[in-house]
């Protein structure tokens, strides 16, 4: 236990490295491009606009309502899926550093999650302006969104800890995870409402651990209501399980990573 406390204190002491790695991640993406950081925002925006156009026609829904719901679902989904897919290779990509100097290894997946969180919050503000433009109003329920972001961040980081270590042991996972995420996207109520699909796949959507996190964003943004206590508890429990398992695996295996790279 004292050892774990020491680990946290050490991580705090090395926060300087975390800031530098996050900055590196964000700066490198737009250096020497004309539009810079805007690309991070334009890319999902264009994607979502096309999706909104096509799927609102397909589902025969009002474009504005559909677009707002889609935006509200895509932001948490994009964050989650990017964190998970980028975390697979995080130790493998930093092999050079890990073998040359001691750094608490958790800093690598944490820097990815923090960098992507900054992107997600930035695109959230842009999309929020668009939602207002499309006729959505501001409501007290929106004050719940920081909690949604916090739960989603810890949940995704927990999964990232699990996946990043597992991939060091089983390299096939980097490909499996990508395929799995593509499938999971359609089993997550991003494009559609969580209650609009019945039949044989309904239970899959129901047990999908990402489902409650999408609802934590959709409910305040599309219906202007604070998520129900049951939903919040479900998300919190999922978060707790993911981060506990992630930290457990990390503490048990982090010293062995270097021998497996």
């Amino acid at each position, binding site marked *: 236990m004292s050892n774990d406390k020491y680990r946290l204190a050490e991580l705090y002491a090395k926060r*300087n490295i975390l800031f530098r*790695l996050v900055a*590196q991640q964000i700066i*490198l993406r737009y250096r020497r491009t004309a539009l810079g950081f805007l690309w991070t925002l334009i890319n999902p925006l264009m994607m979502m606009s096309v999706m909104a156009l096509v799927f609102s026609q397909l589902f025969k829904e009002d474009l504005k309502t559909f677009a707002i719901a889609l935006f509200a679902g895509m932001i948490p989904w994009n964050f989650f899926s990017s964190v998970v897919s980028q975390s697979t290779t995080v130790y493998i990509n930093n092999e050079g*550093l890990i073998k*040359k*100097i*001691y750094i608490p290894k958790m800093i690598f997946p944490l820097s990815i999650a923090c960098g992507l969180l900054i992107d997600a919050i930035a695109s959230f503000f842009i999309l929020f302006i668009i939602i207002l433009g499309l006729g959505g109003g501001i409501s007290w329920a929106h004050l719940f969104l920081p909690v949604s972001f916090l739960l989603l961040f810890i949940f995704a980081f927990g999964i990232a800890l699990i996946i990043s270590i597992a991939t060091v042991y089983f390299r096939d996972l980097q490909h499996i995870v990508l395929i799995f995420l593509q499938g999971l996207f359609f089993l997550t109520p991003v494009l559609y409402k969580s209650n609009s699909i019945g039949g044989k796949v309904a239970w899959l959507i129901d047990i999908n651990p990402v489902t409650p996190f999408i609802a934590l964003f959709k409910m305040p943004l599309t219906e202007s209501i604070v998520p129900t206590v049951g939903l919040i508890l479900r998300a919190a429990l999922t978060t707790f399980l993911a981060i506990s398992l992630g930290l457990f695996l990390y503490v048990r295996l982090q*010293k062995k990573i270097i*021998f497996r790279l």
Partner: protein
Amino acid sequence: MSSIHVENLSIKFRIYHDRSPSLKEYFANLLKRNAKPSYSDFWAINNLSFSINAGERVGIIGHNGAGKSTLLKAICRIYETYEGSISIGGRIAPLLEIGAGFHPEFTGRENIYLNGSILGYSNGELKKIEPEVIAFSELEEFIDMPVKYYSTGMYMRLAFSLATSMHPDILVLDEIFSGGDASFVAKARNRMLELIDKANIMIMVSHDHLLVKSLCDRILWLDHGRLVADGAPDEVTEQYLAGRK
């Protein structure tokens, strides 16, 4: 006071004969009870014990694969899984491979901050040493240029200047590095000697016996991960050279 205590240290490497097992093989092997393992264990460090006290200058010698670099990496916490124990007192500066963590797309100045934070310097310290690092590396004109355009010499100069800009309690060296032109090599050597002089403990690995003899007051001779001799530089290097013939 700085100190290093190593007790019964053993470090094992697992060598896979073909490659790391895939997910499929891992589960297949779980089912096969008496499957022949596809790896063998190799002890890079084998039951090693010694202590280094404040003020000592220790050189480690031994032929290739004797476990010298592995030992230094364990002292610097790069390898953390081992049997036995290592306890370290004091701020440690590993100069094992300089330039670790330099990003080619970043400018020299940005790399000072990125690499400096990895080396354990705080932001305040980095601001203070930045002008001195740039001046010593003689890169004033190029410091705001991405390091991918640097020549190998320029790159080494920057990495060396940064890595040697703080005075640690415990200095860990894997060969004394050199790079750049003759005048820089001479300048770097003096800076290195000064760093060694100010360090409370210095521990180094080198294949250059004359250098080790001149810088160290104690030599550890490693062979296949075991300590063969530990003593005064002249005696141990003589034994080592005699034993090698």
